[in-house]
């Protein structure tokens, strides 16, 4: 039996982010939400391990109470159940807070052998929660994994880490935590049956009252500004004349050797 937790975050869809050039503000209020891209790989990897070795998969998230739609989305991707650790105040948590809440939620009632996280979230991309969670839980941590295998006989995992200087093949006894890279798998697209079935799967609702306070943020956000880029944005037609004009304009701007 392999009991796996796949952690995921419900994030703003960055394709929906608009920039107000005048105020240099990001316009987020009309943006949709989705499961952070790399966390879909985390869920998929947990489900792939289950298909091979049996056991269970629990999808866990820390989210504001308005994010309930994330459960159906996550569960349609294969996990047996979900754990929704939520509070209205969980909107803009610092990494240290997410970690302490996640650790408290897991300790309070989710049994696990393996925790899988994405390499980083699509919104803030601090890449801290995975390794910091392992540290808090006191379990081995293997980051930036693009190949993962589990050996039932000795209950160990072997992982290939993709690092700047090459591949590092490592092994650890369970329980352990891994953070994975998006090239480890291709997340399946849920079928209609899976989407409908997701609503019937159990989801544990964990609130702040049962966990205690979220802890010190340590890191305070002073502000977020839009990254603006001044570009000419001149378009040329795709016909012979347009292409000639584009080449002329480019050669005027850039010296080509």
């Amino acid at each position, binding site marked *: 039996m392999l009991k796996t937790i796949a952690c995921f975050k419900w994030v703003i869809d960055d394709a929906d982010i608009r920039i107000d050039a005048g105020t240099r503000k990001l316009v987020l209020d009309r943006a949709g939400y989705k499961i952070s891209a790399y966390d879909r790989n985390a869920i998929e990897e947990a489900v792939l391990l289950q298909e091979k070795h049996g056991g269970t998969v629990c999808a866990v998230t820390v989210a504001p109470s308005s994010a309930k739609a994330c459960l159906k989305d996550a569960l349609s991707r294969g996990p047996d159940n979900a754990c929704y650790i939520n509070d209205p105040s969980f909107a803009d948590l610092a990494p240290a807070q997410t970690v302490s809440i996640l650790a408290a939620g897991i300790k309070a009632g989710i049994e696990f052998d393996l925790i899988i996280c994405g390499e980083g979230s699509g919104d803030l991309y601090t890449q801290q929660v995975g390794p910091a969670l392992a540290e808090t839980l006191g379990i081995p941590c293997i980051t930036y994994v693009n190949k993962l295998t589990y050996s039932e006989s000795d209950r160990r995992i072997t992982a290939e880490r993709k690092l700047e200087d090459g591949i590092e093949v490592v092994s650890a006894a369970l329980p352990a935590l891994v953070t994975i890279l998006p090239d480890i798998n291709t997340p399946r697209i849920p079928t209609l049956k899976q989407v409908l079935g997701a609503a019937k799967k159990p989801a544990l609702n964990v609130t702040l009252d049962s966990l205690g306070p979220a802890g010190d943020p*340590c890191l305070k956000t002073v502000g977020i500004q839009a990254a603006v880029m001044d570009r000419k944005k001149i378009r040329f037609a795709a016909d012979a004349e347009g292409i000639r004009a584009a080449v002329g304009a480019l050669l005027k701007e850039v010296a080509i050797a």
Partner: protein
Amino acid sequence: MAGIWVFAESREHTRELLGAGRELADRMGTTLGVFAQGASASKEYIACGADEVFVLPVLGEDEPLEACVPVLADAVSAGDPDVIFIGATARGKTIAARLASRLKTGLCSCCSGFVYDEGDKLLRMERMVYGGAGIQTVVCETRPQMATIAPRTFAPAPEQEGRSGKVSELPVVPESGVKVLDRLPRQRGAVDVTRAKAIVCVGRGVEKAEDITLARDLADVLGAEVACSRPIAEELQWLPEDVYLGISGKRVKPELYVGVGVSGQIQHVTGIRDSRVIFAINRDENAPIFEAADFGIVGDLYQVVPKLIDEFKAALKA
């Protein structure tokens, strides 16, 4: 005790953090400490501005670098530095996150720059969020203030003659729960896109691996290197991973960037933001790359690129 402490995997990266750290230490009126892997780098680091070198013991063959986290944490608890900068490589980011968690302090991931506030003695640290669409400013209200810093963010500290510093050795690293079974060094490609003057970048609009020749032909005319977006390297593996551009790949600043069938996801645009001129060819007129481009042609790249090659050839010959 106080001070600015730095740690990075490579000597080059360590020298960059020493450069940033030295300047900050002088402004804060404090000292600069550095962690070194093995004693051999001590002299160089002192010449580059360090006042104190903490030498990590040599790790066992099967120990990952992250095994040193407990020893780093003990050293920090004993020395109580004000600020810690760690090189934002994969291992460095992991070490920093675990260390910050142990020390119960805040960490600014991939800090791209900072301003020191004399008033509250805190760093206003900047970093990119939402794939590069936003810049977040953070302060770390707990001690030590921590940040990871990517390679080439700061200029390396020059060596100076006549500097002196203290060297101390850290205790043996306890055995970690993760064992290294094998290390396969990366096959480095011949191309370093970060140094290219001009880049032709291939995106998902290119339909087959063979069609990359079209981009290569254009690159040859322009004296450019061929790069690509993340999926072309990672999912399709049509080009090596060291030529994909983006927030998690290479960040480039060529004189000219030509996007061929690149849609312009923000994560990609972040990697090409510093290009002087951006030119895009894409069949989708709503592709976000056109918002990030100086010049654009909306059209089928299979029609446009061959004509473009002919036009460049003709214009450059004249």
